[in-house]
């Protein structure tokens, strides 16, 4: 053992440069495997954390759970990482559904309830309020101030409760509300106090895991995050589709590289082994020595590779922290163990395969009395060297060519793919990436019972108009669309025998074709006919599709084909716009608008409805084909003037001051405010955020890919450079002999470079063909996506830079390796015991 260690230490000390080069080569390959696996893990971890931050970390929510069951299973629920959200008191307010309640630690962590300011309450005298609720209540209190609320107690009496304000939380009500699928109006406590032991009005359970217990609790509605989290997993899987080939590239290249470098290392120590074998070093001792070599070689490579991988990951984290997608580091032990085990295995296999071959040969010299010729001699020096050294370092040369092929190919395809992928996705979903809109509020429900005049219940459905109008008056907001379609369904008087115009005639024809009753009939029909000035025996009521649009909406979206658009006539409700396929300018309709009052319900509608009748005339027509609709377009302003309690159904808005972050935050807070006052079936789409998130995703993917390619390319170039260096050094004795005969250093350098260039050319040509071929193929099959600029401005520079770096690196390595031929005396070099 001592002897082996002595020999090994002598070798390392006398060939420091070569040994370090070999160790670094192996480290680079191990680094490639570890880094790509750690990066993948970090990416998944970052996505998961982002998902949890946005969507909560819960797997399941049980809304309105039976309180007794909760009390019975409280301990088990806590053990199963389930949290309780309890509501104690409602605020004494008609308009608002604000509850004071409690969220335990588990619930607060899973939702999550994060603090904008201050902290969560710890006792019954303290309270923290959600930001939106704070704004809704118009509070001005600071942290530490006392706030008082008027609440209704269990007997229905109003009492005042006072708390110390300990914190303001980020908004969480909306995300919990969106997951509710029950029938009652949902309550979630948005003023949280620190006391758990008060008789609750309701209890919700927020569970971190989907367990048997939580799945089987009685509840009004249960939300499972399975589908949402599957979406996120799909996103990660899609990302993997890009990453898996990359990882494979890294792994295959690394395996080949490690095997090749290990083989080379063994050949280097083979001369020592041969000498040792001559003086009686047994096979057993040789194996032990090899194992020590492997251990030192592998351990050093592993340590260096871990340090480099950690550094790369840290740099990626730091760079990404300046973007909106910080890469959170997740450096697990599994990738490290995989890389460590794989590299140890490959090095060991490589060494022992060669050791086995070594012991089959004679230690002294080969057969000398064979008549079989080795090979045909060449008479040209270049060809001679190519043949001679090509045979000697065949595996290393093939590995080098393969690495250059992968490097160049990847530089082309890897720089093309991320941008092509981003552009392709943008092209596939243009609606998301239009500049025309940033936000939309949209009522998802609609329609109702035909007996109820198609009115939407409960009353007050839709987008709260009062709150919305306040937002719309903001100078930074441009209204792209404001409309009502289902919330108010007007009716029309017509003669049962002779329709007034083509439009009404078409209604009867369509009804006949669909075999449905074209007429609208209920208890109030006669009254409606009378109010509209019709004859109950001759006339009837029909319903026609009407779209109530704001004037700006008309100007933006409706293409007038005939007549003229008179703003005043339109706003007064007298003038309407009709489809040119069915109407002519001058067509007249008698419109009856049903208007329920505030107390109207489905049961008492007939007692709480009135009608507004008006004569409307077609003052202009629009291109029905282009607009892809056949509705009568009537003024929304007119509708609101006759039906003041009606809300908006659709709002599409544009933020004209997007660069102002404060303003944008204010607008988005206001939108949340409007949403909280609107009906439960109103949804808010923040296209800005969606597009931003999409572009963040794409940019993150692009960034990851580009970075991975960059790291890959740099590592391969470094490995190629070191490989060239090692190959030259391995033949340095032969070059010294040439020098002794009289060869100039320049001649030898040119000889070596021509060999290096040959490898470079083969690898570059094949890599270029593969990289460009695959990229052009993708561009061809997606011919409608513009790609010439990607090729010209991204792919070409990266490709040229890669080839240049390979060329410069290889040449530098050769020049560095050949330096000793100049600096040392020829005899010193010749006399160096190898």
């Amino acid at each position: 053992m001592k002897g082996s260690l002595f020999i090994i230490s002598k070798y390392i000390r006398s060939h420091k440069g070569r040994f370090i080069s070999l160790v670094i080569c192996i480290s680079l390959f191990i680094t490639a495997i570890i880094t790509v696996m750690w990066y993948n893990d970090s990416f998944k971890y970052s996505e998961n954390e982002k998902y949890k931050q946005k969507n909560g970390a819960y797997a399941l929510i049980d809304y309105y759970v039976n309180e007794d069951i909760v009390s019975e299973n409280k301990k088990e629920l806590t053990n199963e990482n389930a949290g309780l959200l309890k509501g104690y008191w409602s605020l004494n307010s008609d308009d608002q559904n604000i509850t004071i309640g409690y969220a335990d630690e588990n619930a607060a962590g899973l939702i999550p309830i994060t603090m904008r300011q201050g902290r969560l309450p710890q006792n019954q005298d303290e309270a923290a309020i959600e930001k939106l609720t704070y704004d809704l209540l118009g509070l001005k209190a600071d942290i530490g101030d006392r706030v008082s609320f008027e609440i209704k107690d269990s007997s229905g009496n109003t009492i005042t409760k006072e708390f110390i304000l300990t914190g303001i939380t980020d908004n969480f009500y909306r995300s919990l509300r969106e997951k509710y699928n029950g029938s009652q109006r949902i309550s979630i406590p948005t003023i949280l106090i620190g006391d758990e032991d008060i008789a609750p009005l309701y209890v919700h359970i927020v569970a971190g895991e989907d367990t048997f217990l939580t799945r089987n609790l009685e509840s009004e509605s249960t939300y499972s995050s399975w589908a949402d989290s599957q979406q996120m997993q799909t996103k990660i899987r899609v990302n993997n589709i890009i990453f898996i080939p990359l990882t494979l590239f890294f792994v295959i290249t690394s395996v080949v590289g490690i095997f090749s470098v290990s083989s080379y290392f063994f050949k280097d120590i083979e001369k020592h082994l041969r000498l040792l074998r001559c003086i009686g070093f047994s096979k057993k001792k040789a194996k032990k020595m090899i194992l020590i070599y492997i251990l030192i070689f592998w351990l050093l490579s592993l340590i260096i590779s871990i340090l480099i991988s950690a550094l790369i990951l840290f740099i990626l984290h730091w760079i990404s922290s300046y973007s909106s997608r910080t890469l959170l580091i997740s450096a697990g032990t599994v990738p490290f163990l995989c890389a460590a085990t794989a590299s140890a295995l490959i090095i060991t296999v490589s060494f022992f395969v060669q050791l086995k071959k070594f012991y089959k040969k004679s230690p002294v010299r080969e057969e000398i009395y064979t008549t079989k010729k080795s090979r045909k001699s060449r008479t040209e020096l270049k060809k001679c060297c190519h043949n001679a050294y090509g045979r000697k370092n065949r595996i290393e040369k093939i590995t080098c060519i393969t690495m250059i092929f992968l490097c160049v190919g990847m530089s082309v395809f890897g720089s093309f793919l991320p941008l092509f992928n981003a552009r392709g996705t943008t092209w596939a979903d243009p609606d998301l990436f239009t500049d025309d809109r940033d936000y939309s509020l949209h009522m998802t429900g609609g329609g109702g019972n035909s007996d109820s005049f198609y009115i939407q219940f409960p009353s007050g459905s839709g987008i709260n108009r009062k709150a919305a109008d306040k937002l719309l008056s903001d100078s930074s907001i441009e209204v792209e669309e404001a409309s009502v379609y289902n919330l108010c369904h007007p009716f029309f008087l017509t003669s049962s025998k002779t329709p007034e115009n083509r439009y009404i005639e078409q209604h009867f024809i369509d009804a006949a074709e669909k075999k449905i009753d074209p007429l609208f009939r209920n208890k109030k029909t006669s009254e409606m006919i009378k109010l509209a000035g019709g004859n109950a025996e001759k006339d009837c009521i029909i319903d026609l599709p009407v779209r109530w649009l704001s004037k700006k909406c008309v100007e933006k979206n409706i293409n007038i084909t005939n007549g003229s658009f008179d703003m005043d006539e339109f706003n007064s409700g007298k003038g309407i716009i009709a489809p040119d396929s069915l109407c002519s300018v001058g067509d007249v309709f008698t419109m009856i608008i049903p208007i329920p009052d505030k107390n109207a319900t489905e049961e008492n509608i007939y007692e709480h409805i009135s009608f507004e009748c008006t004569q409307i005339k077609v003052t202009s027509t629009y291109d029905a084909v282009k607009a892809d609709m056949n509705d009568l377009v009537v003024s929304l302003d007119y509708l609101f003037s006759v039906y003041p309690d009606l809300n908006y159904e659709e709002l599409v808005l544009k933020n004209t001051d997007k660069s102002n972050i404060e303003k944008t935050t204010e607008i988005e807070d206001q939108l949340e405010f409007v949403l909280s006052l609107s009906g439960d079936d109103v949804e808010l789409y923040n296209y800005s955020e969606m597009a931003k998130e999409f572009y963040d995703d794409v940019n993150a993917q692009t960034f990851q890919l580009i970075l991975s390619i960059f790291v890959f390319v740099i590592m391969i170039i470094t490995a190629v450079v070191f490989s060239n260096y090692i190959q030259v050094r391995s033949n340095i004795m032969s070059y010294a002999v040439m020098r002794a005969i009289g060869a100039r250093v320049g001649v030898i350098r040119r000889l070596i470079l021509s060999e290096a260039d040959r490898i470079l050319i083969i690898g570059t040509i094949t890599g270029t063909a593969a990289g460009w071929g695959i990229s052009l193929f993708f561009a061809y099959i997606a011919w409608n996506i513009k790609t010439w600029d990607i090729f010209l401005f991204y792919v070409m520079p990266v490709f040229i830079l890669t080839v240049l770096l390979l060329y410069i690196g290889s040449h530098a390595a050769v020049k560095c390796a050949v330096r000793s031929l100049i600096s040392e005396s020829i005899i010193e070099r010749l006399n160096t015991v190898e």
Partner: protein
Amino acid sequence: MDITVNGLSKTYTGGAAPVMAIKNCSLKIKSGEQIAVTGASGSGKSTLLHLIAGLERADSGSIKYDNTDITEMSQNKLDDFRLKNIGIVFQSFNLLPEFTAYENIILPLMLQSKKIDKTRIDKLAEYLDLDSRCEHLPSKLSGGQQQRVAIARALANEPTVLLCDEPTGNLDKKSSKAVIDLLFNISNKLNVTLIVVTHDESIAKRFDRIITISDGVLGGDIQ
């Protein structure tokens, strides 16, 4: 080519103390002469040969081939001079292991990008009894064969000077005699100046002129 060595000195540094391998040596060698340089191990005889070959640079003094002073030459010119005019045979053969015997022989010609006169090389190989082994790698040749390949390589460029550093050092007695006989034949036939470094007295005695060297200083010059 006449060789004139004047006041040559060479000191090796780098060890514990500097070692003066050659101290103020001067000698004249006529064209076509056959000289043996003898001395004890470490006396400086190989160093003297290396300096004359231009493989090392002297610290002081001059070495002239006819009127050409190689100590004044640049490295590239020295390499060219050595390639065209000097043939060197080493003790440990120093053949390129990846090249065949034939390729090793024609190496000096390939380095000059000269057209290979195959007939001449074949004759040379035949003369050195290598014709059947030309397509073999050095590892498949015996010691004597390898040395003959080295000699053939040294002669490939038709040098005017043949310098041999212990050419028989790794050979048995029979092979040694054969190699020395060969060297003499070549020198006589081709009128090549022959300088052989040897520690073997029996070999040295065969030469017309014996130069002894001891501790870097030229001792006897026996004609």
